[in-house]
């Protein structure tokens, strides 16, 4: 029996699409159900997290994590893998580092320290939980990207139809075995 296969089409392109928009790589491969599942779960978590943090918890700043660990945006390492939804933060952080003004109306630009302080005092734990939600959304998308590139870890062979034990073609009356007469 031949093992079932998943048509991954162009795995590299599928992985890139899966990074850009969670689920898009699977849509490209024709795995629509999985694409919907990944999109709903990952983008759902990301959106809920962003709502909790009022859209101010995804940002990036270029600092050395060894010399300035308090300013280092650790959560963004996970958030980055949500793809295009979090990419503006990297662009804004890079522009800020080189002394340029934020673009796109300042979307996902680093908020000022006053804004962050006010957010933390007003929302308390929600800021942290929202950051965790968005970070885990990105980390989960790594699994989705890998699935788009490599396929699922286990490809189940279809279970064979239950085979009945071979019964001898003997009428109900039975034929006496040799020597039993």
């Amino acid at each position, binding site marked *: 029996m031949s093992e*079932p296969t*998943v048509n991954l089409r162009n795995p590299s392109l599928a992985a890139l699409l899966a990074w850009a928009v969670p689920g898009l790589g699977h849509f490209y491969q024709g795995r629509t*159900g*999985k694409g919907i*599942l*990944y999109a709903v*779960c*990952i983008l*759902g*978590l990301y959106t*809920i997290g962003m709502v*909790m943090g009022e859209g101010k918890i995804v940002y990036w700043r270029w600092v050395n994590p060894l010399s300035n660990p308090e300013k280092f945006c650790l959560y963004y390492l996970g958030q980055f893998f949500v793809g295009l939804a979090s990419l503006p933060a990297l662009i804004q952080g890079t522009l800020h580092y080189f002394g340029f003004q934020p673009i796109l109306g300042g979307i996902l630009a680093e908020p000022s320290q006053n804004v962050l302080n006010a957010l933390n005092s*007003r*929302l*308390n*734990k*929600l800021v942290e*939980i929202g950051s*965790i*939600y968005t970070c*885990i*959304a990105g980390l*989960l998308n790594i*699994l*989705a990207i*890998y*699935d788009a590139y490599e*396929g*699922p*870890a*286990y*490809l*189940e062979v279809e279970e064979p139809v239950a085979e009945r034990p071979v019964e001898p073609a003997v009428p109900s009356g039975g034929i006496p075995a040799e020597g039993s007469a």
Partner: protein
Amino acid sequence: MTLSPVQIYWLTIPLVVAISLVYSASRHESWRRIWGHSFRLCLWIMGILIGATAVLLVINTQV
């Protein structure tokens, strides 16, 4: 928006459900196995979280 400490615990449920669904989907291609695996994984994670919370609560009440 503010939530009481008890309400905050409810926020773990969507997180656990999403984690178990995505993890299971990355392991299997058959929907039957995805649902089954994610359900079991969800129960495991919730069980461990509830157990750990109970242990910490007991320790806290003894201190």
